[in-house]
């Protein structure tokens, strides 16, 4: 097991290398000169001399392959450079914004589990019941509702009408609930449906039939023989969702004034803050890969057959 994990972690290196090369090339292809953007934001007049001076300061006067090489040497020493706009070290800024987003995502994951597991199981076991019908309608609603609107509706219901929670801000657990719920609801809908389908498929398997034939209690049949097998596809999707939620929480962050990395990154894209964008993409790649690894490990724990392959 340890060897497997080690192997996967080493496998990270070429992937990160590829990701960084791709990002570096792509952002340099995006129209909009970072020097001009900087001068506009700093309200400086873009005279040719000043443009040249700032370009040299940013190191953008060198050819792209040299710049990539310089950047890579820095990154290997865990130095992500300085933001063009704030002039502060990128790493410090990311460390400032990242925990809030992780916190939001973790809470959302917990909520997804609490919502989609019971709903998915009951919808499958009582297929075509009223409960199943209602959960189907709600799932479609949840999956198709834009998070911006959902967020505002939740604020309206829980903060304005019921006066239970704050509308926005960051700090206490109370502040966390609404944004996490907004982030979770859309995903929960998907998982509920996914789990339901997966359970229904397993219900018709022979091992379930045999388990029942052995006279096992229904609760045991469901938990040991159906649920465990049904969870495998869910876990794969779950791992990917984590990455998606970390990288895609920008709308929720801005509705709830959540000081997360999504808002920071989108602002950096608009201001062509190359060092920030590069660091962000690299970190997101690490998050995705680690989630994937975690999913694989959980897989193996769930399925002894796969354990043997290691």
């Amino acid at each position: 097991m340890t060897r497997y994990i080690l192997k996967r972690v080493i496998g990270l290196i070429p992937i990160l290398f590829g990701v960084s090369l791709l990002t570096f090339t792509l952002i340099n292809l995006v129209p909009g000169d970072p020097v001009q953007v900087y001068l506009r934001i700093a309200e400086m007049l873009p005279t040719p001399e000043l443009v040249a001076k700032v370009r040299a300061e940013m190191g953008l006067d060198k050819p792209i392959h040299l710049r990539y090489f310089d950047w890579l040497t820095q990154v290997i020493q865990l130095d992500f450079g300085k933001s063009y706009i704030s002039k502060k070290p990128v790493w410090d800024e990311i460390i400032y914004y990242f925990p809030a987003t992780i916190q939001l995502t973790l809470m959302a994951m917990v909520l997804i589990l609490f919502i989609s597991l019971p709903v998915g199981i009951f919808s499958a076991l009582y297929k075509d019941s009223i409960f199943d019908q209602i959960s189907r309608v709600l799932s479609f609603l949840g999956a198709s509702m834009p998070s911006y609107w959902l967020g505002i509706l939740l604020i309206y219901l829980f903060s304005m009408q019921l006066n239970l929670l704050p509308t926005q801000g960051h700090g206490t657990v109370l502040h966390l609930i609404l944004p996490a719920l907004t982030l979770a609801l859309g995903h929960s809908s998907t998982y509920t449906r996914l789990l339901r389908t997966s359970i229904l498929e397993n219900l018709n398997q022979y091992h379930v039939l045999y388990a029942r034939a052995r006279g096992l209690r229904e609760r045991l049949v469901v938990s040991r023989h159906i649920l465990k097998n049904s969870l495998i596809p869910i876990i794969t999707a779950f791992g990917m969702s984590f990455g998606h939620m970390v990288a895609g929480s920008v709308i929720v962050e801005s509705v709830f004034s959540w000081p997360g990395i999504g808002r920071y990154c989108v602002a950096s894209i608009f201001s062509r803050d190359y060092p920030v964008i590069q660091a962000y993409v690299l970190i997101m790649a690490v998050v995705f890969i680690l989630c994937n690894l975690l999913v694989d490990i959980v897989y193996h724990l769930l399925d002894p057959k796969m354990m043997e392959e290691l």
Partner: protein
Amino acid sequence: MRRLRYIVLILSLVLACFVLSGCGNEEAKTENKDSLTFSWSKDIGDLNPHLYGTNQMFAQAMVYEPLVKYGENGKIEPCLAESWQISPDGREYTFKLRHGVKFSDGTDFNAKAVKMNFDAVLANKDRHAWLELINQIADTQAIDDYTFKITFKNAYYPALQELALIRPLRFLAAAGFPDNGNTAEAIKKPIGTGPWVLSEYKKDQYAVFVRNEHYWGNKPKLEKVTVKVIPDSEATVLALEKGEIDLIYGSGLISLDAFKQIKDAGEYEAQLSAPGSTRVLAINSNKGPTKDLKVRQALEYGVDKEAIVAGIFYDTEDKADTLFAPNFPYCNLNLKPYQYNLNKAGELLTEAGWNLPAGKEYREKDGQILELDLCFTSTDTTQKALAELLQGEYKKIGIKVKIIGEEEQAFYDRQKNGNFHLIFNETWGVPYDPHSFISSMRQPSHADYQAQLGLSMKKEIDKKIGEVLISNDEKARQQLYSYILGTLHEQAVYLPISHTKNIAVYNKKLANVKFLPSSYEIPLELMEIK
């Protein structure tokens, strides 16, 4: 055993959330009678008095003060300078500084501090090249502890107006300077003479200001002011209704229909300031069909501004007929407005050779359709609504308008390169209009320069702009302004739409919410809680 493992997993996830949320500092929730919370859409920035960009002007103005203030009707009033003398040739300004002023760290404000700040700003001249004042300063001198002299290259008349600006010439205490003295990079700590002191700050979350106990003027009535960063406009309104914030003040923070709703509901106070800057479309005299004066004039006649003001601005903005409102200094010129007149617009287009072929929607000349690019920032909902409305309006007179919405940088690249027929623009309002704004018309990177480039008299206009800024004679100055603004009006390179206003929406427990002449400052020191 296995089930236990899952339970442990879930519990540890929940725990992780709580631990992480513990990391975030708990916001002090005070229902204090002496404190006020308001919202702003962006982080306040570094509070560097000598820089722009991410530094929010209202926050800089809370902490730092100028030598002189811009008062009602453009009258210059004393602030950190008690009095000043201008030499007869208009080149030397001698300021007598106010005695007994202290920075918030308790150190004295004196000529040495003024000199130190001027030197820091002048050391980064290229950063401030947009501001003619900086280019005109020849020398500065601290004559004694409370006397400071500035010598200008020419008799630059808007010197006092530009010294009153929020940036770059306000004063940081010596202890706030970085070790190398270069404030263009960073400052150590925001220490000013203003009524407020920053006491707590969480980037992109909130900033808390407390009353400056050393303040020389009338001390603020409130003890504490909290600025919450709320980027979303709907969320801002909800936060007000929930009572999490007491005040929304500024422009563009909430949608105008939300403003109207709040105002009509009557549960909160809702006020509008006097007109500030002007929303205009720059019409490019150097590109395609709009090179022709008649086409530009037709565009002016073809817009029903009253319908725009009612339909898009819900009457929260005033219709604009000229680039600057007549109440601005030197701007009361009795220029004849272009009244909405579709027939006249059509005639002008026909005269210009653009005819409407039978059975077609758009006018043509030599087989070419009359098509114009109207460019806007895609994230700006007001610009978008205006662009769509204008597209419909101009269709009535046979002009095909292509509306191009792009992200900010692409939009500004178009302004800079002159790659537009019509593009949104806005004047700068008090205290920049008209002098700083017309001064910037000479910069090739501005849409104004590009739009005017096709005028046969562009050289003359630029020359007169240079002259008016250093004219020492009131009458000559008025004549020059009349020429510049009159010519731009006749040549129809600007299509004024409306005059913007600041809004203030607030809880009824708040009193003394006022507007200042400068639309960039918020007079928090006057506000109190009933």
